[in-house]
C-alpha cells in the first residue's frame, strides 16, 4: 500500500511515540539501578543520577546472591535446552519417519494429553520429586523438563515437511535410519530446532513456578527465584532490586538481539510464550 506523505509522517510519529512509551519502564529501571535510595524516592522523579552508583550492582551480586543465581540459571538452561533438543528430535523422528507397531496409538495418547495444563500435573510431579529425595537438586530443576510434549509435536510437524524421497535415497546408498536422522533430518530442520531452542530457552530462563517448589537452598536458586526471594527480603531497597532485575534481563536481551530473526520466526511458529 502506498501512503501519502502526510499520512506517512503521522504514522511515523505514532510509531516513535509508542516505542518511547514502551521503552519508558526500561529506562526507568536502568536509571533507578544507578541511583541512591534518596534519588529513587525523590519527587519529581530524577532520571539522571548525580553520580552513577555502580555499587548497587555489587550489592545485588553479593547480598542478593545474583552472581550465583546467574551461574545456576546458565547451567540449568543450557543443559535443559540441549537435552530437550536431543530427546524431542529423536522422538519426533520416530513419530514422523519410522513405522513400528503401536506408534499411532502412542501418538493418539500423546495428542490427548497435550491440552492438559501444566498445573494439573505439577502436584503429582512435585510429590514424585519429593519422595525420590530430589528436592534441592539440579536434577529436579532439569529432568522433568527434558521430555517436552510441545517440543516433540512441533518438531514432528517440521520433519513431516521434509520429502521422504531423501530418506529412500539414503537407504539405497547403503545408509541406515540413524544416518537419515543425523545427515538428512537434523541438518534440514535447523529452523525448527532453532525455534524450539529459543522457545525453551525463554521458558526455562524465565520460569518461577517450578523452581519455587523444588528449590529451598540459596546455593541452587535460579535468577527468577533469587529475584523473587530478594524482593520479599529487601522490600525497600528499590535501587538494588532494579540492579538485580537489569542483571536478569541482560542475558536474554543479548541473546535476543543476536538471534532476532530466529526469535521472531519462533514466536510466529509456536505462537505462544507463557
Amino acid at each position, binding site marked *: *500500500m502506498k*501512503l501519502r506523505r502526510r499520512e*506517512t509522517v503521522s*504514522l511515523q510519529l505514532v*510509531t516513535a511515540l*509508542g*516505542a518511547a512509551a*514502551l*521503552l*519508558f*519502564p*526500561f529506562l526507568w*529501571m536502568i536509571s533507578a539501578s544507578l541511583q541512591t535510595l534518596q534519588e529513587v524516592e*525523590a519527587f519529581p*522523579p530524577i532520571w539522571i543520577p548525580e553520580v552513577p552508583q555502580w555499587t548497587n550492582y555489587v550489592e545485588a551480586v553479593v547480598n542478593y546472591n545474583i552472581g550465583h543465581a546467574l551461574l545456576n540459571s546458565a547451567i540449568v538452561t543450557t543443559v535443559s535446552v540441549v537435552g530437550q533438543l536431543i*530427546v524431542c528430535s*529423536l*522422538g519426533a523422528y*520416530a513419530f514422523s519417519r*519410522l*513405522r*513400528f*507397531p503401536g*506408534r499411532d496409538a*502412542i501418538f493418539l495418547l500423546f495428542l490427548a*494429553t497435550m*491440552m492438559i*495444563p501444566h*498445573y*494439573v*500435573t505439577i*502436584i*503429582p*510431579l512435585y*510429590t514424585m520429586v519429593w519422595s525420590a529425595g530430589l528436592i534441592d537438586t539440579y536434577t529436579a530443576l532439569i529432568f*522433568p523438563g527434558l*521430555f517436552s510434549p510441545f517440543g516433540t509435536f512441533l518438531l514432528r510437524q517440521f520433519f513431516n515437511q521434509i520429502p521422504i524421497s531423501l530418506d529412500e535415497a539414503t537407504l539405497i546408498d547403503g545408509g541406515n535410519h*540413524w544416518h537419515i*536422522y543425523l545427515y538428512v533430518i537434523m541438518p534440514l530442520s535447523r529452523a525448527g530446532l532453532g525455534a524450539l531452542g529459543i522457545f525453551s530457552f*525463554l521458558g526455562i*530462563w*524465565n520460569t*518461577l*513456578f517450578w523452581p519455587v517448589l523444588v528449590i529451598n537452598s540459596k546455593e541452587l536458586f535460579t*535468577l527468577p527465584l533469587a*529475584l523473587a526471594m530478594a*524482593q520479599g527480603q529487601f522490600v525497600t531497597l528499590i535501587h538494588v*532490586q*532494579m540492579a*538485580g*532485575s537489569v542483571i*536478569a*534481563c541482560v542475558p*536474554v*536481551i543479548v541473546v535476543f538481539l543476536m538471534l532476532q530473526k530466529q*526469535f521472531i520466526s519462533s514466536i*510466529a511458529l509456536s*505462537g505462544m*510464550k*507463557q
Partner: protein
Amino acid sequence: MRSRQAQIGQAADELAAGKRPRMSGIARKEAIAGYVAISPWLLGFLIFQLAPILAAFYISSTEWRILSAPEFIGVRNFDKLLFKDDLFWQSIKVTVIYVIFRVPVSAVLSLALALLMNQQLAGRRLFRTIYYLPAVIPLVAVSMMWIWIFNPEYGVLNSFIRLFGIEGPQWIHSSRWALPALIIMSLWQVGTGMVIFLAGLQGIPAHLYEAATIDGANTWQRFLKVTLPMLSPVVLFALVMNVIGSFQIFTQAYIMTAGGPGNATLFLVLYIYRNAFEWFHMGYASALAWVLFVVVLVISLAMLRSSEHWVHYEGRIGGA
C-alpha cells in the same frame, strides 16, 4: 487382484507349513530403530506426563495432606469448591475479569502495531525490536519493575499523573485498582501478538489489494474486506493462545500483590498454588487444577465453534 479365497488359502498353506506371517527384515530394522529413537521421550512421557495425569485424577478424589496417606472421598472436593468455597469463586471471578479485559485489548493493540510495522516506515526494524523487547524479558524482573512504577508515592506513573494536578490511585495497594493495574501492565507485553499478526499480514497476497484498489476500494474498505478476512485464521489462533495463557497468570500476582489486597488478585493458579504448597491440601488443589483445565477447554472449544461464523478460510466457497 487376488480373490479373498485365494488369500485365505495361501495363509492356510503357510500356517500348515509352520510359517507365521512376519515382518520382513527391512521392516523389522525400521521398527527397532523406531523403538530406540522414541524410548527416551516415551519414558519421559510416561513418567512425567501420563502418570502424573492419572495420579492427578485420583488425587483430586482424595483428602491428602502429603504426610499421611491419601483418603478417598469421591467427589467431595468438587462439591466443596462448587458450593462451599467463596475463595474459589473469587479466584474464578478475578481470573475471568483479567482474561475478558486483557485478551481483546491486547489483540486490538497488537493488530494496530502489526499494521504499523507493515508500512514502509523509516527504522521499521528498530521499532519492531523495541516493541517486541518487553515480551522476552523475565516476568519476575518485569513485575519488580512495575511494583515501583505503580508505587503510589514516588512511582513514575503517579508522578506523571500529578503533573496534571490529580492524585493517582493506590494501584496495586488498593483492592479496587490492583486488578486493573495488572491488566495495564500485561499490555506492555503486546509484542508477541504483534509478531504473530505481522507474519499473518505478510502472508496476504498483494494482488488482492491491487484488485480491490482497481475496484475503487479506499484504505478503510481494503482493511475491512481484504485484511481482516484474510487475517482471521491468525486472529483466531492468537486469541485462543492468549486465552489459554491468560488463564494461567501466576508470576505477577505472586510477586506484586500476593493475591491481595483483600483477594482482589487471587487468580486461579495462585489459589491452586496456595492450596497445594502453602496449606498442603493436595487433593483439593488437584480438583481446582482440573477445573482450570475444563474451563480453558470449554472456552477454547466455544471459540473454535464460533469461528465458523467469522473466520475466512481460503478456498472455501460461500463461507461467511
